[in-house]
């Protein structure tokens, strides 16, 4: 059960990060998801990414909607405040939270039902507003908690466990995010930790709307023949276009790469995104070619993964609104209340 805390005892030799924390300090309670669930791998990747980045756990706010994926924030970062909100409405709650305090790191975790069906509107609008967040969709193409109905990301023609064929077109949230102006868009696979962890790190350090669509097979309802979200299917159709290294200022590493095979993006906070190209003709600095590439490969049955697009000079909603640098939740009467003199002036203008 979710209230069963994990024992905090750990091996004395577990490595510590720059803050002196071990990976265990980024964990949560024991997962109640099915054994083998892709979502648990994503939780592990989040823990790994936060540990590697040496983020202070309490400076993360983790928010989710409703569904299997939305239960996962309980299973990582138990020193963070969490908010399991309303089905499909995590983006608005996260947006509000971000407006209140721009200094925290916002991690939104959602699923394909939560974001592509009931929450498609809020997903879209949080992207176009450029909310500074890491928005992860744990995408399995199926409703888990309600036992096996298709979700809106299920591919047309794919089969449910009971043999029903999905006749509706599937929604590609990464393509939507690209079209809607997200400034960091990636896709990955829960079974590829090596690819996923750096993408989460890149998203967490990105100063704008970062979206990661993580294909995450559902072992209970969508891991069969005829599914396009099964472990086997994704492994056989995964076309990774690049590998990302996130290099924070403090820990510069040097490596030699053949010319033209590496793309580097310096972010606002000084961190460096180094992309090793796996597909020579993939350019993650162009929104339009990213969309075109992903869709043309999809037409051939391939799932493109990797960092699909990143905008180096990305800004966020606070920048658009022109809000002060200080968190709004720290402001008091002095900054907020103009006082009786201003009111008297206002009254005088209304006589």
């Amino acid at each position, binding site marked *: 059960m979710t209230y069963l805390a994990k024992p905090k005892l750990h091996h004395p030799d577990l490595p510590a990060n720059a803050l002196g924390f071990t990976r265990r300090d980024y964990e949560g309670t024991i997962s109640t998801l099915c054994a083998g669930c892709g979502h648990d791998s994503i939780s592990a990747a989040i823990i790994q990414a936060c540990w590697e980045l040496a983020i202070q756990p309490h400076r993360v706010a983790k928010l989710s909607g409703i569904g299997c994926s939305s239960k996962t924030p309980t299973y990582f970062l138990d020193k963070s405040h969490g*908010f399991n909100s309303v089905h499909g409405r995590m983006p608005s709650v996260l947006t509000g*939270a971000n407006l209140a305090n721009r200094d925290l790191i916002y991690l939104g975790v959602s699923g394909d039902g939560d974001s592509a069906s009931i929450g498609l509107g809020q997903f879209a609008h949080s992207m176009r507003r450029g909310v500074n967040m890491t928005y992860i969709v744990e995408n399995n193409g199926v409703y888990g908690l309600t036992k096996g109905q298709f979700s809106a990301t299920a591919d047309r023609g794919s089969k449910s466990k009971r043999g029903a064929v999905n006749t509706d077109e599937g929604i590609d949230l990464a393509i939507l995010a690209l079209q809607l102006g997200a400034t960091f868009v990636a896709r990955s696979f829960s079974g590829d930790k090596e690819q996923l962890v750096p993408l989460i790190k890149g998203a967490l350090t990105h100063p704008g709307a970062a979206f990661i669509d993580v294909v995450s097979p559902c072992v209970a309802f969508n891991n069969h023949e005829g599914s396009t979200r099964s472990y086997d299917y994704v492994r056989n159709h995964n076309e990774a276009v690049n590998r990302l290294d996130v290099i924070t200022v403090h820990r510069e590493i040097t490596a030699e790469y053949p010319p033209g095979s590496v793309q580097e993006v310096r972010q606002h906070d000084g961190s460096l995104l180094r992309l090793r190209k796996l597909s020579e003709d993939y350019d993650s600095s162009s929104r339009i070619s990213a969309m075109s590439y992903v869709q043309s490969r999809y037409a051939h049955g391939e799932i493109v993964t990797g960092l699909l697009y990143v905008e180096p000079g990305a800004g966020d909603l606070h920048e658009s609104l022109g809000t*002060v640098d200080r968190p709004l939740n720290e402001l008091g009467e002095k900054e907020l209340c103009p006082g009786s003199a201003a009111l008297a002036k206002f009254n005088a203008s209304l006589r």
Partner: protein
Amino acid sequence: MVKRIEAVNDFVVKFANVNGSGSASANTLFAKAIMRMGVPVSPRNIFPSNIQGLPTWYEVRVSERGWLGRRGGADLMVAMNPQTWEKDVVEIEPGGYLFYDSTKPLPADKFRSDVTVLGMPLTAICNATYSDARQRQLFKNIIYVGALTALLDVDVAEVERLIGEQYKGKEKLLEPNLKALHMGRDYALEHLPCPLGITVRRTDKVGDRIFIEGNNAVALGALYGGATVCAWYPITPSSSVAEAFSKHCSKLRVDPATGKLNVAIVQAEDELASIGMVIGAAWNGARAFTCTSGPGVSLMTEFIGLAYFAEIPAVIVNVQRAGPSTGMPTRTQQADILSCAYASHGDTKHVLLFPEDAKEAFQLTADALDLADRLQTPVFVMTDLDIGMNERLCDPLEWDDSRTYDRGKVLSREDLEAGQRFGRYLDVDDDGITYRTYPGTHPKRGSFFTRGTSRDRYARYTEEGSAYVDNMQRLVRKFATAKLYVPEPVLTDSPRTAHYGVIYYGSTACAMDEALAELEAEGIPIDALRVRAFPFQDSVIEFVNAHDHVFVVEQNRDGQLRTLLVNEGAIDPARASSVVHYDGTPITARFIRRAIEERLSAFNVRPMRRTAAAGE
């Protein structure tokens, strides 16, 4: 021949216009000029859900006695809209006056014999003076205002001053407006029987009162109350709350050092997102509000249930309009009382505040931000279109500079460091209100998981029935605690012993003041209680029980506040009956008085003395 109406500082002028014709600013000018003469006026917009071409009316009640409610009927009709001519002419009181554009002759059967007809060839005058079509339209409005100054003895110098203020810095526009004003005035003085039987006489009954729309006051209340996040979705009649808030913030919330804003205002994609943002912001320690109307609240209800159960502050301004969602969005009602009091799924109850006018709306909006933080729950500020979208005379807005924001029970980093025990839903003070922490406060202590699902006192997920009941009972205690914080009802005791009482709230107040005075003058003593909040204090229930019978006067069909009283208070339902008005127009003193008289005569109550009936 009906005697023509004779009255000084006590009449109603109604303007019938076409919307989009620029009449609104001219009509406001007229109302304000009378106010500047020290005579109380109360104007009301009656407008369609449309931008251009449909009928719109502007009613100005002039009342030296200071009655600000709608009176009903019109003593002078300024009939500028041929589409509504028939209806407008019918509405004139016998002996009243009809002012119209006489450019095109109308057959005699279009007029009434019992009203004084005042024709002025406005179109002809404009066509002769102006060549530009838009100018012909706009100046026509100023020209009729000029004529009215002569007809009603309004001091033209006041209108001139107002035009001067309006076009300060735009002197090019000033001269032509003044010229049009005098053109109208001179024509009337020469050709019409000036002054009419109804006139304005300078007096000093306005005092230091201000003339303000409720939505503007709400916006300022939110600003003074320390709201830093506003998320909203356009819906009539509430949109101007957010627009006014933005406008005020662009002046009053600018950080002097950087020029950046101490506020974040987001026009959301819908009401679901608006309330979601408010809840997210408040969860994270900012004061946040949204403004909407009934249909918006309907859309927000799932989130409102979450906020109630997860105990997150939220301020929701509901500028009520006639329901349902479409049809009468530009008409007023108080029909969301029950839908707000019990909004959402499961067992919920919410705090409601009922301001009577703009002044109180300012105050209660600021208070709502304190209350929401104190009680950690959604708080509704229940205004309506009548308060929100009409300029109304009210006392100047006040702010006590020594006032500090009540942020409620929040544990700081220091509190947590000092080892204060923290259970998010642990009732340590026995008032039902528990302590909370903002995200990011302390590296090791004070984090918790917020959820709509059930949990124990330490915010740990549980499906135990006993933990659920424990929590729900605490929420009941918290709601009882709310009674100590919400504004007290206002009692108006009849000077004589009254066996009957009346309960009312919100925008009904201005009509009720007048109705009570009329009833008193007729020798019918009534005690009155203006309810300002839900949950009801014990004094509200005691008021019902202390009278033989109580009339609950409200602007909805089903007597929603009465239902709430019966449901929440230990009262005998037979002791309270509803007096309801819900056709979308603001309730009038005439309506209230007649309804109460009828009920009382059915109870066989006779006036103790009869004086010359007031207001007849």
